[in-house]
C-alpha cells in the first residue's frame, strides 16, 4: 500500500520541476526503482496511474527503470549481485552484506513540452 504515498511524492517532485521549467505537459516520467526497495512493480504502476490523473502528467508515459541489487561483503570485501537482503556472499558465503545499490526510489527525469 505504501506504493501510493511514494507515487504521490514522485508526482509532487515531478510537478515541481515541470512547473519550474514552464512545461505545457509532461510526455514521460522516468523512475528508478531498486530491486531491494520494497516496492511491488504492479502496485507501483497502478499507483502512478492514479497519482498522475488530473495533473500535468496526465498522459505521461511512466517509464520504470529497475536498479539491480549490489552489495559489498563486510566479511571478505567481495562485491556481488544481491537479489534478497538475506543472500549470502557469492564468494565466502557470509551473511554480511553492505548494500551499495538496489534501494533506489527516485524520480530520474522528465520529458516535457
Amino acid at each position, binding site marked *: *500500500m505504501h506504493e501510493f*504515498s511514494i507515487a504521490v511524492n514522485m508526482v509532487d517532485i515531478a510537478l515541481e520541476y515541470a512547473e519550474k521549467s514552464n512545461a505545457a505537459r509532461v510526455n514521460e516520467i522516468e523512475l528508478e526503482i531498486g530491486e531491494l526497495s520494497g516496492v511491488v512493480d504492479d502496485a507501483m504502476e497502478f499507483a502512478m496511474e492514479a497519482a498522475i490523473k488530473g495533473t500535468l502528467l496526465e498522459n505521461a508515459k511512466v517509464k520504470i527503470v529497475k536498479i539491480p541489487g549490489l552489495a559489498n561483503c563486510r566479511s571478505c570485501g567481495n562485491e556481488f549481485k544481491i537479489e534478497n537482503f538475506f543472500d549470502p556472499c557469492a564468494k565466502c558465503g557470509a551473511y554480511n552484506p553492505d548494500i551499495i545499490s538496489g534501494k533506489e526510489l*527516485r524520480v530520474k527525469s522528465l520529458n516535457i513540452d
Partner: protein
Amino acid sequence: MCGTCGCGQADEIKIFKPGEEEHTHTYVHSHDHKHGIETHGHEHDHQYAHLHKTDGHKHTHKHESEHDPHDHDHQHLHGHVHKNDEGIDVENGHGHHHDHQDHDHHHDHDHDHSHGRQVVIEQDALQQNKLRAERNRGYFEAKKLLALNLVSSPGSGKTSLLEKTIKALKEKTNIFVIEGDQQTMNDASRIDAAGAPVVQINTGNGCHLDAEMVNKALKKLDIKGEGILMIENVGNLVCPSLFDLGEAQRVVVISVTEGDDKPLKYPTMFETSDICIINKTDLLPYVDFDVERSKEYALRVNPSLKFFELSVKTGEGMKPWLDFLVEELKKV
C-alpha cells in the same frame, strides 16, 4: 487523492489526546468543486449568494436569503467546440461543403519533429520524509529524548509491552507515547491508564506513520522534560519500514505465535531495525516457533540486530529490556 493509500478521498489524519471528542477534526480538508468540463460549460446564475460549509464529508448550503423557498436561475450555456482539420478550435459547428475535383495533390511535407525537453531530476521519492525525519531527530536531541519507533504485525504485543514498560520505569524516567492506528483511541486509552502522556494518531486508511504525522503529534503532545518517547507504528510489517520518523532506534517486535521465518518473509523491516524483540515466549511450549532459527534468519538480513526474548505477560525476560532502555537513555 489520499497520499497514504490512494483512495479517492483527501487525507484524513486525525490526532487526539485521551478524553477528546472522537469526531473532532484536526485537519479539515476542503473539496474543490468543479463545475463543467472542457466542452460543455455550465454557468450557474444564482440569484442569492450562498455559503458552502464543509463539515466532514457533508456539504451544507446555507442560503443567505430572507426568501425561502426561492428559485435558482440556472443558465446552461452549451458551447460546442469543434476542431477543424488544422486542429484549431472553432465555435459553433457549421457545415463545410467541399467540392473535390479530380486533381493532383502535391504535398511538400516539412516535418518538424518535436521530442520535447529533457529535465533531469535525480531526486529521492522519500526525500521530503527524510528531511522531516531529520527535523524530528534534531528536536529529540535538543529535548534529550530517546525516541524509539516500534513496528510489528498487528497483535504481536506492542501496546502490552509499552504498558508494562511504562509501569516498570515510570519512577525512573518520563515516558511519552505516540500511538499510531488506522482507527480508534483504544491503544491511547490503555497507555493513558498506564500513566504516560499519550497522543493517538488515526491514519484513516493509511498503512504507516510518516515523519510529518509524528511532527504534528509532537506539537500536540507538548513534551515537558527528558525521557523516552515511544512511537508505536501502525501494525504492519511492510509499509512502515520505508518511513524514517526521526527515531534513534527502530524496534521490531515479533511473537512466537507467528512463523519463525518472518525475517525472511519481510526482510526490509528487519533490515532497517536495530532491535528485535521476540515476545510471548511463555507460549513456546505450545507452538512450533524455533527461537534460534528465527534469530539466525534475522541475522542473515541484518547482522547487527540486537535481540530481547521476553514474555510481556509473565514478565520473564523483561529486565534486560528495561535495563537496556535505562542505559540508552544515559547516552542521549
